[in-house]
């Protein structure tokens, strides 16, 4: 209730787009609660976040009517896959779904305004801290009801969908691993073997260099791809628990443990493709595709840069090599994409019904067939149609003990984008000055995490 009181000062400053949006959700929520109060006065008195009252609305009633679905899948292939999923959903329910597709990056950049404006009932988002960040601020709807009937999702997935209040706000859909990708045909022709440890890796890199190829492709023009390399190194050097704690702002970036990561990275940069700050991730994937570079640390989505058929079949990956034998390689990175529900959906029952459908193996099966660089999160999904790469990804993720999301999904979005992107780019530009860089990250982290 406390958040309703200071509503008026915010209204005094109408001009910025952000502030003008405030009044809308609050008044709409009040309106919503007002309607509810006709049925149950208690709901108003409790003044809960609206989700509990909508839960009553959905109980028992069969879903029908219209529901809006906000998709960030703006590329042709996944867009068509989503259309197909919705078509099959509509065939077996009384709900009519309207899909609003928004460009992938714009969707992410506008998420704040989107959530405070009039978001679609169901929309695409990511698991982990990036989900909790918005759930904690009360900007998304509680979908714990949906989870009661979900089958085929592991406890790990449920944990990744749960916010700090132990309610679920997310329904996982697809996932993909980050690892070291390479062309098996090249490795076979040159007699290379996938390295198990970092020493093996550097021996291999020296050999590759001698053979006239770039050992490790690398790109960071857009600021985020290099975060994946940081994650891998930190997971291998300091382990999963430290990584998570560092991302949550609980560890000091000036800790020698973090310095070790950057020192190891500086060494890795010596065998990495130079001029990475002017290269997009697509270009780095293409340099593997064109056999200019032998390996690349990236997400499985890099397969999109390969043509379906023999070209893409000639792509494989191995876990990022072991650095410390006490830590091993059982922590991997596999971001989960999925869906969330608006805080006060226009049609809560139908939105939850749609979310329940999206959690099923059948729905996910359509998507993974259309885009073979992702795999279904539902364990019951039919894997017989999977490509060799997808099958390997399933095993890889199933065999992992800990799964991280990605730097910008595991920490505060403001920290990731306004501190880590410039910091990592500065490091790549000048890998020698690690101390002052870490000092700067730590002092910025303090100011952001305490605000």
């Amino acid at each position, binding site marked *: 209730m406390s958040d309703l009181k200071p509503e008026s000062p915010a209204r005094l400053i109408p001009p910025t787009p952000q502030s003008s949006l405030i009044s809308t959700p609050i008044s709409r929520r009040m309106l919503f609660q007002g309607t509810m109060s006709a049925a149950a006065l208690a709901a108003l008195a409790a003044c809960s976040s609206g989700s509990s009252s909508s839960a009553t609305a959905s109980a028992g009633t069969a879903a029908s009517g219209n529901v809006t679905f906000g998709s960030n899948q703006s590329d042709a292939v996944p867009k068509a896959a989503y259309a197909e999923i919705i078509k099959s959903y509509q065939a077996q329910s009384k709900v009519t779904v309207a899909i609003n597709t928004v460009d992938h990056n714009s969707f992410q950049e506008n998420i704040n305004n989107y959530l405070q404006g009039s978001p679609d009932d169901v929309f695409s988002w990511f698991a982990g801290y990036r989900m909790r960040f918005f759930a904690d601020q009360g900007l998304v709807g509680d979908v714990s009801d949906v989870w009661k009937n979900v089958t085929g999702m592991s406890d790990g997935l449920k944990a990744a969908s749960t916010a700090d209040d132990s309610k679920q706000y997310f329904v996982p859909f697809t996932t993909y691993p980050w690892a070291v990708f390479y062309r098996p045909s090249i490795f076979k022709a040159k007699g290379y073997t996938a390295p198990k440890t970092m020493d093996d890796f550097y021996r291999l890199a020296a050999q590759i260099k001698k053979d006239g190829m770039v050992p490790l492709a690398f790109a960071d023009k857009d600021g985020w791809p290099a975060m994946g390399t940081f994650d891998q190194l930190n997971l291998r050097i300091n382990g999963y628990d430290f990584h998570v704690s560092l991302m949550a702002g609980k560890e000091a970036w000036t800790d020698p443990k973090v310095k070790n990561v950057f020192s190891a990275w500086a060494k890795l940069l010596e065998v990495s493709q130079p001029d990475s700050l002017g290269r997009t991730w697509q270009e780095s994937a293409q340099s593997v595709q064109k056999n200019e570079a032998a390996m690349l640390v990236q997400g499985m989505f890099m397969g999109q840069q390969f043509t379906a058929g023999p070209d893409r079949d000639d792509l494989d990956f191995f876990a990022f090599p072991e650095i410390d034998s006490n830590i091993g390689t059982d922590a991997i990175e596999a971001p989960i994409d999925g869906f969330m529900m608006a805080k006060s959906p226009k049609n809560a029952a139908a939105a939850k019904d749609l979310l329940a459908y999206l959690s099923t193996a059948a729905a996910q099966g359509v998507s993974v067939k259309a885009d073979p660089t992702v795999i279904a999160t539902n364990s019951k999904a039919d894997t017989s149609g999977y490509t060799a790469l997808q099958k390997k990804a399933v095993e890889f993720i199933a065999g992992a003990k800990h799964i991280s999301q990605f730097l910008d999904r595991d920490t505060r*979005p403001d920290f990731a984008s306004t501190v880590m992107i410039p910091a990592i780019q500065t490091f790549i530009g000048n890998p020698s000055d690690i101390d002052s860089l870490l000092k700067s990250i730590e002092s910025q982290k303090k100011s952001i995490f305490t605000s």
Partner: protein
Amino acid sequence: MPETTARLAAPTAPAGTRKRGRPVRRSGKTRRLGRGDRITVMIFVLIPSVIVLGLIWLPAIASVFLSFTKWNGVGPLTSDSIVGTLNYENVVTNYPPFWPAMQHNLIWLAVMFLVATPIGMFLAILLDKEIRGTRVYQTALYMPVVLSLALIGFIWQLIFSQQEGLLNYVTGSTIDWFGDQRYNLGAALVATSWRQVGYIMLLYLAGLKAVDPTLREAAAIDGASQPQTFFRIVFPVMRPINIIVLTVTFIESLRAFDLVWIINKGRNGLELISTLVTQNVVGEASRVGFGSALATVMLVISSVFITLQLRVVMKEER
């Protein structure tokens, strides 16, 4: 409709006639304006005032206010959100991209002012000589102004690209023009100057065409050389155009944003205050308070330059 505006124009332009006798004119003015006229004038004054106030002044003041808060764009502002000058302290001492951005903005202004604009003026003078094919040159030089900055970014990408770029192909170098922080500001400035030159050229050419030819003739008869004629006679006569050129240069430099955003979102050597504001306020980051502090810094810098410029203009007009 045109008649009404014509009629209105007379009473609303008393500035030039004011000197003759203020009290008399004022009473005369009130008598001459009918009721309908007065309402029309009020509407004409009111609507722009409301627009300027609502769309420019209020947001500007609000962002100054927000710069003293830690608001993240979500939920209401409370008294807890007010953090005093903390954001400014962080901007100056705890935000590494800030000082490079300040420096880049100043370099940008200097290059526009000292390189792009003089080149544009020089080209205008050359084209004013009625050399053969002057129309072709004019069109060619003005072309970039018509193109959107997105397109300009793309065109220069074709030239500056490390792998497939024209520049590296011709010179055989392997410099990553847009990716290497040592070169990318220079590369971006070349691209933006390319556009600025054409713009200034056209403005200046129009001014040159309007200069009374008898002045040059008289100068020529008196035995003045070409540079003397320009610097002693033509340039001072063109003061109004010079001021417009100056203003355009200032405005274009201070609002520099589009091109660097297209190149790499204003990171890695291309930081400008405007891109930092966008990175902080727009997007998932949503550091509205911090971003507003950056925006206020930019507002102050712009105000300094604009005030200086206005003072110069006002003084000269007196």
